[in-house]
């Protein structure tokens, strides 16, 4: 048992690194009296920790699917890939937080530490292999997120956003737990492994209990990925939270929830029957509504952050198409989407953060005439916007193409057409930013200090993959293909 346990720990090295980094940074922060110095060291320390975590995750990609800790977590290439994306997203959020004014100077260290903590929760959720770990992941992620959302202490909206998040999060977690208890009552187990045979021999009465139970269960995950009708919190929270936190929310919880959803769908609903019919039918409707509501609501926003929030709801809807097909093509499409979504989101938020720091707000008008002032940044923003809308030859297009292939392979033509039409709608509001930047004159002629060299380097570093993955995506395709098979 002892040796076995150690072997399990070896599988869990990336998470351990993240946890150790978090703990170490807490001590580090406490030992320094001077805030400035502490922030600097914590920042560097957190980046180092995350990079090491990333490296160990990449090494973990080699490991075939192995359940660890008595089947509590599943370490497989799928979850590892999701964790890699989330870690990259965390690094991005940490960097944006470092440069953004939105995170108060005195709270920077806490921000880095908390974000890493939330990442650990996300990792747990991504590889959860029983109901309890899943719940634990959701809660770890959520509780830290509540704090992060209200991080701008002096801002009413941030406080409001934190409170809204707590209320929504608490209620949906409760509903999820309620659903889980019913599932346990019927199946007699919380494990995912080995549940399939049990599902096959259910009486119709038991199925009748399971179906609403899973619906309740879905509330918890649905709220994490912010799909309709559990999306209400997300625009307000996104808008109120500091910008780096919003970037983090747009990536980590969403992908972690999506990964868990894929696993749950694969485990419980890969066999045809009433259960699958009900679950996938629900998901299809949810996916369609999410795409429509997210993209339509984004049209009339005046704050860029809020627009990005709604657009990320729309993207969650598109990703859901990869879930409803319940096969490896769908899983690999989600992974591909995740990778490109990461870069696009980071790029969009990074630039928005820069602009909103300059002008103290993030209204669309602030982007007017940006091309003249910051040519490089504006061009990169254009690329990101086109990519988010799914215009070839950019990565966002390839991601949508992958999702559409998964859907059409299973003959979901209606959903595919909805995905297409909503991406036309999304083009409209993404073009709004492009239009303002390129066609409009600036509001005033005041000179603004430059976009530093390091900033340029980073924005190029984020945008280059968006172009590169749009043209040479064979390599990534092979990687996600290898990571897409979820064995149970």
């Amino acid at each position, binding site marked *: 048992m002892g040796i076995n346990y150690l072997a399990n720990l070896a599988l869990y090295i990336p998470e351990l690194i993240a946890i150790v980094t978090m703990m170490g940074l807490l001590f580090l922060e406490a030992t320094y009296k001077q805030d400035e110095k502490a922030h600097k060291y914590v920042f560097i320390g957190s980046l180092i920790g995350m990079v090491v975590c990333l490296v160990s995750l990449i090494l973990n990609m080699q490991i075939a699917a192995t359940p660890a800790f008595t089947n509590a977590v599943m370490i497989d290439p799928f979850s590892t890939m999701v964790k890699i994306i989330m870690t990259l997203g965390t690094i991005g959020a940490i960097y944006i937080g470092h440069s953004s004014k939105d995170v108060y100077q005195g709270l920077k260290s806490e921000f880095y530490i908390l974000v890493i903590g939330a990442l650990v929760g996300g990792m747990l959720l991504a590889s959860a292999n029983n109901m309890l770990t899943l719940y634990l992941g959701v809660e770890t992620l959520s509780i830290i997120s509540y704090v992060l959302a209200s991080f701008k202490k002096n801002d009413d909206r941030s406080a409001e956003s934190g409170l809204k998040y707590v209320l929504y999060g608490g209620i949906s977690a409760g509903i999820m737990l309620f659903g889980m208890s019913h599932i346990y009552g019927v199946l007699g187990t919380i494990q995912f492994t080995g549940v399939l045979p049990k599902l096959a021999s259910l009486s119709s009465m038991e199925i009748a209990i399971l179906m609403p139970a899973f619906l309740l269960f879905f509330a918890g995950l649905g709220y994490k990925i912010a799909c309709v009708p559990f999306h209400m919190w997300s625009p307000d929270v996104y808008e109120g939270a500091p910008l780096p936190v919003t970037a983090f929310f747009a990536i980590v919880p969403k992908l972690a929830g999506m990964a868990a959803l894929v696993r749950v769908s694969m485990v419980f609903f890969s066999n045809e029957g009433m259960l699958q019919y009900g679950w996938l039918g629900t998901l299809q409707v949810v996916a369609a509504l999410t795409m429509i509501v997210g993209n339509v609501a984004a049209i009339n926003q005046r704050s860029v952050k809020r627009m990005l929030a709604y657009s990320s709801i729309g993207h969650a809807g598109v990703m859901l198409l990869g879930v409803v097909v319940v096969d490896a093509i769908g899983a690999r499409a989600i992974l591909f989407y995740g990778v490109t979504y990461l870069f696009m989101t980071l790029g969009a938020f990074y630039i928005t953060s820069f602009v909103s720091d300059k002008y103290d707000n993030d209204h669309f008008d602030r982007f007017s005439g940006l091309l003249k002032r910051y040519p490089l940044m504006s061009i990169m923003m254009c690329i990101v916007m086109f990519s988010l809308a799914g215009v*070839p030859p950019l990565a966002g297009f390839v991601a949508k193409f992958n999702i559409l292939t998964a859907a059409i392979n299973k003959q979901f033509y209606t959903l595919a057409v909805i995905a297409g039409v909503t991406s036309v709608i999304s083009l*409209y509001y993404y073009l709004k930013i492009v239009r303002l930047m390129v066609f409009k004159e600036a509001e005033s002629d005041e000179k603004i200090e430059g976009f530093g060299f390091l900033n340029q380097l980073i924005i190029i570093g984020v945008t280059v993959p968006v172009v590169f993955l749009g043209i040479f995506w064979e390599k990534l395709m092979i990687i996600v293909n290898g990571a897409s098979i979820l064995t149970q």
Partner: protein
Amino acid sequence: MSGLLNWILWLPLITALILLFTPKGKDNLVRWISLVGTFLTFLLTIVLYMKFDTTVPGMQPAFNVSVPWIESFHIFYKLGVDGISMPMILLTSLLFFICILSSWTITKSTKGYFALLLMLEASVFGVFLSLDFFLFYVFWEVMLIPMFFLIGIWGGENKEYAAVKFFLYTFFGSILMLVGIIALYYVSGATTNSFDILHLQGGKWINETISIFGHNFSFANLFFVFMFIGFAIKVPVFPFHTWLPHAHVQAPTAVSVILAGVLLKMGTYGFLRISFPIFPQAAVSFSTCIAWLGLINVIYGALCAMAQTDVKKLIAYSSVSHMGFVMLGLAAMTVQGTNGAVLQMFNHGTSTAMMFLLVGILYERSHHRWIVRPDGSRGFGGLYTQLPKFSIVFIIGMFASMGLPGLSGFISEALIFLGIFQKFTTITVLAVVGLLIGAAYLLWMFKRMFFGDVIEECKSYTDMNAREIFYMIPLCVAVIVFGIWPSPILNIMKASVGKLVSLLAGFEA
């Protein structure tokens, strides 16, 4: 040899990249580099034309390029040229060369303008050359980005609205096409050839059905309609034409020329390359519908043109009308009709380019385009005495697009009528009325602008300068020569058109 298509495709893009590295403020250098780039491209297409083997039906084996691109999805970088794409390629390279010359007076961020124009050229070549469906789609969409900026930055007063409308409209159409492309990929087995346009041809899915909400649809019919909408928006076929007048009126001259001269043809080219060969049975069963839509285009476009007081808008609507003739020729599905359609695509490209260029030349002098101003006074008058050279070129262009015998428009329209007459007699007769209206609005416009007293503000206009005359010459020559002797173009397309028509004939009831 096989590198030729690669060079034609990428040379404009390479030129655009070179432009980005030119020092700031050297506008003339930028212009000359782009001129040389497009001229070399034009020469390459002439070489391609010389080496073209007119006896080969279908793709020219000598020029084929095929390199695996994304192996997971069996996507290839596959280029080829046949008798249908060859005239389009010639037209594209010629018009872009001329457009660079006509854009000499652009001063607002010159570098960006020429770089975008060259990017546009590369993507248009991509559409006409690619034989892989995915590749085709990528080029089809990439084209929207330079167009969006060209209209939106260098356009007229209402440019933003026009640019966005153009982008959204076309994007919507192509998304439906994308769904069709992927559906084809899976229905053909997701194998090595499943994105290969040539492999998909031949109408393999006659009995395939798909079910949507419990209703069974014929696979071929459904996706024929999907792709039809995608291409029809580009043509534009009524009722999808509403983006066109805006885009044309707001776009700068060169972009209007490209839009009318080349981009509209991409729609009809799509029918010829993709819709018809891949879904021949659906094409045959929808042919009456296509013919009626073509007729509506002819009549409606002509009537709209007649009502315009803005001369550029008039030309834009005349394009709608003339593309209707192409649709009629396609609907005929006979050798003459299809020959006429492809020839009309080429001829309309040259004649409408002339008209837009001339309107652009006039606009540079007058800074307005009113035939009749909103207050009822004349916008132009007596141009004939004031600008003799300009008037002569204008007359040639006008008569060519009117379809006067001896000029290029006549031959293609005659071929189309020949091809369609037996099948759709009523439609043919009605379409001839459209021809009549065409003559009416053009002559009426000419009378109002060129005859009568010279109005005060026209007295200051100068006649065409050497540069303007220089770039009008090739178009005048093309319009006149191909009006008398169309065989250089007809010979190229003969074998390929024959192949397509015989494929379609196999599915006629």
